[in-house]
């Protein structure tokens, strides 16, 4: 299991406590990326809160759908993030990983993070759609073309995540996952055609229709757009955090045993009043700092 530490980990100047254990310290987050992550997180939170406020209290109910229409501020936005942003990003990063000139574990981790967040949003899409479908169509689930395609996508990417969980060298896992993502993406238009011919019930797109003309007006339109922006920010924030965790996980895979050994040795040395004088016990032990991962 203990593979030599991968060279790609962005190494920052090691902290003094970790150097005398002989273990590579976990890659630290730079101050700039921490700030970016926080700013995006706060914006996402503010955007979501505003969307909820506008959607539930400010905007008027719909003439035919009544209060049910308020789901329009969430459901299409969630679907947009899952089906276009997340899975699109996963597809592009997988191809970039497979392309020899741009091969880097960065793309692999990005694809993995995008799929994982995308699956969450995909499930939210199906759940919010179901909640909407019951009162309007009278059923929780209909075998409509778009619903079916969304469900198939979910299953395809659940398979991708299952494959990623299998322990392997980072490069092998990256290649394997990239191929699976590529095959899944190739399948999407084929599934799309087939389920379209099979059955269609869902209404046409509200925003992403050909011509990009809004079929919705006034405060409702603004709330809808704000919802899209807020959910996109939520996606970006989750992606950043998941990527950082991915880096830490890879570090842990590579250094877990070495770090644990160093810790035990340090314990022994401490007990003997040994040569590690000056270091606070446990202070710089790498496993502690990645405990949250």
């Amino acid at each position: 299991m203990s593979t030599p530490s991968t060279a790609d980990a962005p190494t920052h100047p090691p902290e003094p406590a970790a150097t005398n254990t002989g273990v590579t310290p976990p890659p630290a987050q730079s101050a700039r990326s921490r700030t970016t992550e926080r700013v995006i997180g706060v914006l996402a939170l503010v955007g979501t809160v505003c969307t909820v406020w506008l959607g539930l209290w400010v905007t008027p109910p719909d003439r035919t759908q009544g209060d049910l229409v308020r789901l329009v501020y969430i459901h299409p936005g969630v679907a947009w993030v899952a089906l276009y942003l997340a899975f699109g990003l996963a597809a592009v990063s997988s191809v970039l990983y497979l392309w020899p000139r741009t091969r880097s574990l960065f793309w692999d981790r990005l694809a993995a993070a995008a799929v994982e967040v995308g699956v969450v949003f995909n499930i939210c899409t199906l759940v919010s759609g179901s909640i909407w479908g019951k009162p309007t169509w009278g059923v929780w689930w209909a075998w409509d073309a778009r619903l079916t395609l969304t469900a198939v996508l979910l299953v395809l990417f659940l398979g991708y995540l299952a494959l990623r969980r299998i322990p392997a060298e980072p490069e092998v896992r990256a290649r394997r996952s990239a191929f699976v993502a590529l095959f899944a993406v190739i399948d999407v238009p084929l599934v799309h055609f087939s389920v379209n011919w099979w059955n269609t019930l869902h209404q046409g797109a509200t925003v992403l229709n050909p011509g990009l003309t809004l079929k919705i007006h006034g405060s409702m339109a603004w709330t809808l757009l704000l919802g899209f922006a807020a959910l996109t920010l939520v996606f970006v924030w989750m992606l950043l955090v998941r990527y950082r965790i991915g880096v830490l996980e890879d570090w842990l895979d590579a250094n877990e045993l070495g770090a644990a050994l160093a810790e035990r040795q340090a314990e022994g040395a401490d007990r003997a009043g040994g040569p590690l004088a000056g270091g606070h016990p446990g202070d710089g032990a790498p496993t502690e700092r990645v405990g949250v991962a």
Partner: protein
Amino acid sequence: MWRDAALVAGKDLRIEARSRVALTQVAPFGVVALALFAFALGPDRTTMAKGAPGLFWVAVLFCTVLAVQRSVSVESADGARDGLRLTGIDPAGLFLGKAAAVGAQLIALEAVLTLGVVLLYGARIQVPWMIVVSCVLGTLGLAVTGTLYGALSAGLRVRETLLPLLLLPIVAPVLLAGTRIWQAAMTGGTPSDGTQWLRLLVLFDAVYLAVGVVLFGPIQETA
């Protein structure tokens, strides 16, 4: 490439002829599946005849998973996979050969299942050529995608559980198209109902054949 493909396909079929795993395990499993579907849908033959196209293809899909697993496992012992690569066989040829062997076994199996569907479910086939064409095209798609995923999962200890999860959603278009063509062939409706689905099958086969021929070499390196 073609010569290599013929060699590999011949080897796999020879192994099958001597071990008879597909004949004694996969084909009986297909029949068992047909029987189970009959139990699930009750003894009413009209319901069964109506569901026959879909049930036929679901049984074929399950058998595909078994056939692909067998096709992978014959290479897993004694470093046979590395040996195959060392022979200098063209990866594209290897891909086509493995897929052809799986496809040939599936075609034979589909003949048995068709007979089963006709005899057990009372399905009436009005347009036989559509059945034949859909089986050939559908089998090609199943064999090709199956071989691709088989190669991807070849080195994994959890292959048996992972392969169905990865493969079955991918071949959903084959199931949909195959079922619709069968329905058209059974009702004797206008062939135009089936032709757009036939086109979809051709597209599916062409896409994954091309992907396999180009990428099978790199995929082998991942295992």
